[in-house]
């Protein structure tokens, strides 16, 4: 079971801060696709363009492997000021 967390704006937009995924998933890209299939907002806000990912609190790329019991966090990049 993979624990998925959403932070900051994503938590508000998706209406949830945490969920669990039971399906077998190999990497970040696959998890992203699975979550994006949940609906229009999910698809838009969890795209690689709009959401950064951390696996077990370390910022990860699309090929980063994910295994059972991993914690995967999605959060938006910030560049304004």
């Amino acid at each position, binding site marked *: 079971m993979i624990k998925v967390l959403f932070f*900051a704006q994503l938590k508000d937009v998706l209406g949830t801060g945490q969920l669990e995924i039971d399906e077998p998933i190999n990497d970040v890209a696959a998890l992203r696709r699975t979550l994006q299939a949940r609906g229009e907002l999910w698809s838009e806000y969890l795209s690689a363009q709009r959401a950064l990912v951390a696996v077990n609190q370390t910022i990860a790329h699309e090929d980063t492997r994910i295994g059972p019991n991993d914690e995967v966090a999605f959060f938006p*990049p910030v560049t*304004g000021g």
Partner: protein
Amino acid sequence: MNEHENRTLSQQQALRYCRQILLPGFDLDGQEALLNARVLQIGVGGLGCAAAQYLVASGIGNLTLVDDDTVALTNLQRQILHTEQDLGKLKCESAKQSLTSLNSDVDIQIHTVRMSEPELEQAVAANDIVLDCTDNLETRNLLNTVCWKNQKALISGAAIRMEGQISSFVPQHHTPCYQCLSRFFGEQNLSCVESGIMSPVVGIIGAMQALEAIKLLTGFGEPLTAKVLLFDAIRSEWQTFALQKDPQCPVCGTENGH
């Protein structure tokens, strides 16, 4: 940290900064390091106003501000060095006036036209540390490249909506660089103009940048290197994520001979 003459604290300065000098581990040495420090700050908007205010109040010796923008009414909600009387003035000039009344001891230089890349190189090389208080990805990436090339620490702050982000990049510590983080950012490059920003959020991040600068200049405490701190102002929560060096990074990557 620089080739300029080493100043020692006067009695008056030691009194003025005694609440900092009292901090165990900071001491007179820390305060003197600040007095001799040269800080380059790019941007005098929301982040920059907060950062510069604390840098100057805390007794930094020399501060160079770079911004070509002028003060608009919509800036006043969060850019706290500019007043109603400053509308239409250059932000650098307005900020310098406020900062000088806060601490006339600090040598403040201003640069009010957009810097060319060679000018930016020169400014970075002449300072000990650089604060990125800009509002766009392109400038942030350029600043990172120039800082890395000149082996200068870069403190990057960003804020939008109800969110903030801060991280320090220190070439001498072989940390990841800003590009190791920004390579994950998509094309979207939202600014506070279209997305909005809550006033204190940008101030909190700017104040954190000043704190990071003080830490890195004095060796006091632990800086935010190889990690990214994310602030969720809706819930008043902070998250820390570790950031790894990208071996193929065009700026700092080990596979590129850096």
